[in-house]
């Protein structure tokens, strides 16, 4: 009953003309920046912060939250249509989403992404409303050693993610991990692998690598082989998923929602792993795993749902503990403090209107996004018909603006161009870039957590086995490693026997 009272309180806050309008604006701006390749929610929210000065804090946060999950919806659009992941979480969507577009099923991919996101958002919102407080205990269960084990597990998943050869995938992961070590050492302050170049003393930004290796690499490939592109334009296909598509996607959507909701809770940015983990799970559960990577609808539905669920539950550590799990949440903290609301465990008790208002607004926002996005699919799909000679300069331009806006640093744009060449070379040599990106994202966290865990245990390795969470995750990683390597070993033995 208390829950209903609370939701009613939240509804009274949201259902004012003002806040509904702000929610809608947030969702539309979010969709827009999500769709523009390169322009991300971090830069946008940073730019919009001064505007929130003049609005009342609840309205401001409702709008910013709308931008955040709106961008999650919109981000899948560029991943599917032009193979550019704006965010770490959209990398997985490029795998099968873009292949679907190449097969003439762009509309279906976009549709199932939107519907999956809506279902995930709805369920995740209910989870937050009903269980926010007990779940904070779960969020605090993870210590550095456990995060390290989680990241190891994540890297194992990255191997499964790969379509082609396992050694190549492992090589890509390791390169990603190596790239993540560029920059200033956490514990000594020494610069590593910067070759005295101060522009990368703080490390290489994820957007630079993702946009370069996948985005620019894809553009170069298309320019190299224009026939492939023509094929995409010729086939448009149906605009919305059929009933059969939906039936096929329902279970992945629900599984993705579960995984995303749980990982999103972790204040150490666990949401990053959610789409990867879901993709791996779906690939393992599928009757015919070889379809993955060639346009399997489950490979879009699951990760997209996980992505959106994680984006929603990431609000729990922020609102109940005062811990921002990612860069966007850190900006939300900024927006709160500007209004004198100091994040901490008191928000729930002292600011019930803010807390419940935001939760109800999330559900309303998800509904708005579905309504905004479904009709837009037709327009996006028609964009594929734009001649590539007109489209690619626009994409490059937006990417450059987006990359520059991350740090206001021109060197990032040059670096992205360089990574574009790397991406093109990788495509030519038949290496997959997705494991590289996952290696990069997880590598940084993994190293930090490893060193923190060892500092805490004063160098004792047993710390990774003593704590049940980390012990469980590490043994799961072993199992996954076994599963991955087994077919390779068997194949080799078969070959030996054949000889």
């Amino acid at each position: 009953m208390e829950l209903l009272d609370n939701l009613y309180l939240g509804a009274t806050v949201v259902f004012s003309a003002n806040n509904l309008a702000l929610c809608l604006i947030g969702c539309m701006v979010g969709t827009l920046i999500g769709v523009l390749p390169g322009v991300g929610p971090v830069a946008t929210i940073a730019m919009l912060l001064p505007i929130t000065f003049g609005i009342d804090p609840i309205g401001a946060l409702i709008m910013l939250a709308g931008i955040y999950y709106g961008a999650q919806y919109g981000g899948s659009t560029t991943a599917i249509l032009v193979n550019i992941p704006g965010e770490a979480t959209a990398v997985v969507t490029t795998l099968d989403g873009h292949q679907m577009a190449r097969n003439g099923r762009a509309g279906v991919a976009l549709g199932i992404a939107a519907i999956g996101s809506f279902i995930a958002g709805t369920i995740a919102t209910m989870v937050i409303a009903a269980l926010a407080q007990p779940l904070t205990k779960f969020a605090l269960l993870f210590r550095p050693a456990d995060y390290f084990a989680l990241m190891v597990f994540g890297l194992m998943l990255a191997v499964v993610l790969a379509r082609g050869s396992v050694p190549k995938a492992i090589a890509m992961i390791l390169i990603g991990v190596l790239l993540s070590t560029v920059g200033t050492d956490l514990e000594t302050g020494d610069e590593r692998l910067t070759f005295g170049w101060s522009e990368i003393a703080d490390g290489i930004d994820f957007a630079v690598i993702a946009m370069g290796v996948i985005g620019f690499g894809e553009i170069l490939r298309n320019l190299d082989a224009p026939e492939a592109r023509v094929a995409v334009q010729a086939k448009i296909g149906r605009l919305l998923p059929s009933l059969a598509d939906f039936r096929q996607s329902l279970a992945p959507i629900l599984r993705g929602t579960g995984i995303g909701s749980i990982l999103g809770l972790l204040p150490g940015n666990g949401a990053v792993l959610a789409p990867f983990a879901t993709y791996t799970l779906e690939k393992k559960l599928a009757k015919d795993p070889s379809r993955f990577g060639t346009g399997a609808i489950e490979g879009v539905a699951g990760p997209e749902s996980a992505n959106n669920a994680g984006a929603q539950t990431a609000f729990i550590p922020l609102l109940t503990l005062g811990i921002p799990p990612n860069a966007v949440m850190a900006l939300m903290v900024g927006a709160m403090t500007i209004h004198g609301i100091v994040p901490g465990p008191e928000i729930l008790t002292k600011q019930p209107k803010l807390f419940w208002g935001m939760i109800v607004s999330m559900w309303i926002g998800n509904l708005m996004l579905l309504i905004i996005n479904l009709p837009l699919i037709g327009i996006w799909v028609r964009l594929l018909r734009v001649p590539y000679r007109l489209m690619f300069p626009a994409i490059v331009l937006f990417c450059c603006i987006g990359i520059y806006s991350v740090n206001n640093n021109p060197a990032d744009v040059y670096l992205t161009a360089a990574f574009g060449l790397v991406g093109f070379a990788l495509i030519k040599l038949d290496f997959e870039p997705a494991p590289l990106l996952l290696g990069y994202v997880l590598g940084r966290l993994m190293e930090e957590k490893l060193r923190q865990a060892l500092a805490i245990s004063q160098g004792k390795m047993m710390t990774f086995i003593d704590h049940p969470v980390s012990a469980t995750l590490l043994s799961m990683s072993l199992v996954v490693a076994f599963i991955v390597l087994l077919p390779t070993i068997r194949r080799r033995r078969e070959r030996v026997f054949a000889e």
Partner: protein
Amino acid sequence: MALFFATGRALAPLVAMVCFVGLASAQAYPERIITMIVPFAAGGATDVTGRIMGDAMSKRLGQTIVVENVAGAGGATGSLRGKNSKPDGYTIGVGHMGTHAAAVSTNPKLPYDPRTDFDYLGIVNVTPNLLIVRKDFPADTLQAFTAYAKANGKGLKMAHNGLGSLSHLTCVLYFQLIEVDPTYVVYRGFGQTINDILSGAVDGTCDLVASVTGHVKGGSVKAFGVADEARSPVLPDVPTATEGGLPAFKVESWLGLYAPKATPAPILARLRQAVAESLADADVQKRFFDLGGSVPKPHQAGGDKMLEIIKADVVRWAEVVKKAGGIEATN
């Protein structure tokens, strides 16, 4: 003599004219948008304080102040851009005890000297530092904590927000005073640090009152040893270091504004006036209070005082860093 007077009389209109032109341009200032460089990412404490000041000052100057976040190298990237900007009053910047005092000792490649490269507009926000520990830590007072630290040494796990950060330097200072060498666990920023204090993975940290207010008030951590003469009005229940038997532990973090060196005097005066008026604004004072800080005390206010404090703090942190055997800042 007569000649001198004659020349003087002849020059008088010219002098008057020059004065007038000077005055007119100062009066016309500001004619366009002013940029405020914040050397950290949007949403952080430095950024929010800068924005509150920018908002208040723009009302007084009649021009918008736009915040530009130039993060990187622990604030050095943005501060360097501030130093190199045209000294015309259309670029100002935010600096604090880290970027404009401690960095001299923690960053061997610091591309500016805070003692000579800036014209200061004044400190705008001060917040004392303090110690916080996890909720179930076996000490409730600074005395008990000090005793625990001495008994456990390396067994005490102190977190901080990064090498050379204010939370790190404050911890180093405190443990130098009580002559204990704890285990340091390094995090990237306060969000990570507070996470592991709440989960109990580490014992505590030293940070600004402004950073931890929400958690102290919410009762998720224990706090003591406010490093100031008097208790912080924001956390009146938290005892000071003096009450805890360690009066030498005094660290007050400050944040101030600067203009590039050689900004014309009339423009500098106009900016300083806007700062002073903004700080007298009850709304600004309330906003700072809500965030856990306060406007500077009379003996800290003004551009000249800020330079004095910077010079003193550069020396002070140089000693702490030297005693610690050198600290090279991350970011």
